[in-house]
């Protein structure tokens, strides 16, 4: 009876079962992926006692906001948080401007030097800075760039440029050459044209670059741990790591610290998701 009704409506039972299985599998997978994050959030609101006793997945009886204020003020996260935000935003800003300019010049010229520089930058993509950290550290150390806010920014910019040049070059064909030519005819210099015509048209590319480099720098540990040992200049991940290695039974404040440190980047991702996915598609799949 039901079966014949479905048939009349053009729905096959096979299809319904198929769809349900699809939703079930996708649902379970997604939940499994966020479960560890939920665990961190859950622990960050628990008391020390609740950490050791009873079901670890049980929700806290009362929300311990103290864990957060302890992490933020007592562990001096405020300072490392500001430092990380400063290094990230300045580096990412410079990378976007400098890489965009180079990518534009490479895309609009045919000369041998421009071709060479494209390949030159490719080396940086194939060799991640982690493989070069030792000489990078030696350079930083001998040139007094360690324990220096500008030193670490220079290194973040230098190591982020390759990726930037590549991403921006692959986006360049979205900028119509006619607009640039019109701008030259109007008597604009090449610099003026870059800043007032090309860059604004590259907004999606710039947004993608900013997001991807922001993740990279915000989440960096190796370079930060080598370059800034001074407390006043240290970054979130370095502080977190020292916290992780100290903690024994009291890790609720460490969990609160984790939530504090991943919040800005999560908010950034969710608010610019559209650009990010666009950029991945253009930069990765086509490139």
């Amino acid at each position, binding site marked *: 009876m039901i079966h014949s009704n479905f048939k009349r409506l053009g729905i096959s039972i096979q299809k319904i079962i198929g769809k349900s299985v*699809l*939703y079930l*599998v*996708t*649902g379970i*997978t*997604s939940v499994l*992926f966020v479960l*560890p*994050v939920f*665990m961190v959030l859950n622990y960050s609101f628990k008391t020390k006692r609740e950490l050791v006793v009873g079901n670890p*997945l049980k929700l806290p009886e009362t929300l311990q906001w103290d864990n957060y204020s302890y992490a933020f003020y007592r562990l001096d996260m405020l300072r490392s948080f500001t430092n990380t935000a400063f290094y990230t935003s300045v580096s990412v800003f410079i990378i976007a401007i400098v890489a965009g*300019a*180079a990518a534009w*010049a490479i895309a*609009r*010229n045919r000369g041998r*030097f*421009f071709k060479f*520089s494209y390949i*030159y930058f490719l*080396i*940086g993509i*194939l*060799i*991640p*800075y982690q*493989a*070069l*950290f*030792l*000489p*990078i550290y*030696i*350079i930083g150390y001998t040139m007094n760039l360690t324990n220096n806010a500008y030193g670490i920014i*220079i290194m973040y*910019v230098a*190591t982020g*440029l*390759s990726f930037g*040049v590549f991403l921006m070059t692959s986006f360049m064909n979205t900028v119509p050459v006619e607009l640039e030519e019109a701008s030259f005819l109007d008597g604009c210099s*090449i*610099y003026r044209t*870059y800043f007032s015509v090309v860059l604004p048209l590259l907004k999606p590319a710039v947004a993608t670059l900013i997001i991807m480099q922001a*993740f990279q720098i915000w*989440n960096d540990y*190796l370079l930060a741990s*080598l370059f800034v040992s001074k407390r006043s200049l240290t970054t979130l*991940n370095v502080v977190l790591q020292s916290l*992780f*290695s100290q903690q024994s039974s009291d*890790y609720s404040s460490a969990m609160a610290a*984790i939530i504090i440190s*991943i919040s800005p980047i*999560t908010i950034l*991702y969710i608010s610019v998701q559209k650009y990010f*996915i666009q950029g991945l*598609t253009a930069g*990765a799949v086509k*490139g």
Partner: protein
Amino acid sequence: MINHKHKMQYLSLIIPAMLLFSFGVILPAIMGIYYSFTSWNGMTPEIPWVGLDNYRNIFHDSYVKNAWVFTIKFTLWNTVLQNVFALLFALLLNAGIKGKNIFRTMIFIPCLISPIIVGFIWQRIFLNILPYLNILFGTDINFLLFGSADTVLSGLLLANNWQWIGYWMLIYLAALQTIPKYLYEAAKVDGASRFRQFFIITVPMLAPAFTISIVGITIGSLKVYELLVSATNGGPGRSSTSIIYLIYNTAINGRQYGYGSAISITLIAALLVVALWQLSFLRKKEVQL
């Protein structure tokens, strides 16, 4: 349109990027090669030249061998697991379900977290969360994956895959959406099964995405370090010491800059050879299709 004056100005737009990149990447690479021929300890003003000694020593060093074995195992497993699961999840999300964006975001969230934190989170999962299942179900499963040399690789793979599958899933999802629908319709008309459609249309059309993800996962896995710092400390023993971890121990803690540099150079050589080989091999496959 572009005259000579313009050309010089275009050059001036490349110069800042060139200089910074040369300073922060190319110069270190050259210096690394130089130090790899010395026995410098990083402190003394004179830098003793030892020629190929460091490279000869690498071949007899069991620590280096162990680190390479761990790093290669980690890389191979990651390349297989991340590709398979990323593609599988991308296909699931691309099968016309509602709420796709929410599921996609849920699976992607771990990518936003620093590997230092990921290591710590999984340490806690293995120590505190999973053992509770034993109490709950009265079982006796060993969940302390980071605790023994036999299981540490599986534990790290679990943590690392949890973090990165979402990223590569996004790449595959984006690639899947560029496949024109009419190809499937034509195949359907010709009577091709779903299974056959996957192999004659989906897989070939995904070739560029395969290239990107295979090269990306390889490079990413060969440089694994941060995850180990907070998850295992390279242990137990030296069972999860990766190449970068070993370089760090050798040069920074052991004060053997020259030797550490030589190990770095072997890593760079491996990265370049593997990435270029993969790129040329996979690109050729793309062209044939």
